């Protein structure tokens, strides 16, 4: 009964401006929190974008490998030394793993190593798989560089690929 009475009186008194004050308190608190988290969130966002770019890069590499349509220089090499690669193959990406290898003094950025896991049953020779794996890795790094617009500070093989706060290298593709 006490509660009911208070409730009714509460309405009668009409706490003017309470909502506004609460909102201001809440908004102020959130703003401070966001400001504190901003640098952390920015880094995480950058890493997310990089991973997404890595995935689409891997996809592009796999498409070239699958359809057996290569850049002209590689094609000429394969036609003589790795004839199997002239035909189409069937590759699947299992996952892409990241490993944070800490701050690197040379570039002043944090080093991230990417490792692509892929499977391919149509190829048996290790040299053939390595060639296709190198193409996947190259496209992963290229895609990251393109995404952050850092092609001009990378070398021809985009190794390593840079983003604003990180740089990326790729380990050999693990065939499973």
């Amino acid at each position: 009964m006490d509660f009911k009475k208070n409730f009714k009186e509460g309405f009668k008194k009409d706490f003017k401006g309470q909502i506004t004050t609460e909102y201001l308190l809440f908004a102020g608190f959130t703003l401070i929190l966001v400001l504190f988290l901003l640098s952390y969130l920015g880094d995480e966002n950058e890493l997310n974008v990089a991973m997404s770019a890595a995935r689409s890069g891997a996809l592009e590499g796999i498409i070239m490998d699958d359809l057996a349509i290569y850049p002209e220089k590689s094609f000429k090499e394969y036609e003589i030394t790795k004839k199997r690669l002239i035909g189409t193959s069937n590759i699947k990406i299992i996952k892409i793993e990241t490993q944070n290898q800490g701050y690197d003094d040379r570039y002043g950025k944090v080093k991230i190593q990417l490792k692509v896991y892929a499977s391919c049953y149509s190829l048996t020779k290790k040299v053939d798989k390595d060639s296709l794996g190198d193409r996947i890795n190259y496209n992963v790094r290229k895609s990251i560089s393109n995404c952050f617009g850092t092609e001009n500070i990378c070398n021809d093989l985009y190794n390593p690929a840079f983003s604003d706060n990180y740089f990326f290298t790729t380990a050999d593709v693990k065939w499973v």
Partner: protein
Amino acid sequence: MELIFTTLFFIFILTGMVSVVSDRLDVTNRTEELLDARMLVETVANSINNVYTAGNGQNMDIVLPPTVGNSSYKLLVNSSGVYIEVEGMKGKAAILPMKIRDGLSNTSHKIEMLPGRTYSIKNEKIDNQSVIIIFSK
């Protein structure tokens, strides 16, 4: 206040998304191009094989598309396969080993097929041997 928050949040997400989305679109376009190229080269190789195995007198027309994806291309045929070149990329589809000639000279070993044209593939007996003749119509 809410509007400012929402807008800022939206912009934050959008900046991250733009590069990713444009990257994905590029990949999709590239995929279409390479896939079309592979399909075309296999179709041509298949047609040549079919004409060859069907025996003397067999004739088939193929119409080449003006582009693969959105880019121009180049098709080359020699006695070991059909090659396609598109945007600095190259691919090959193997054919049965056979003698190939174009309609003009008798000694050509490499035939270039141009986009957007119709070609006739013909199996003829020359000097007691099956020879595939490819010429533009």
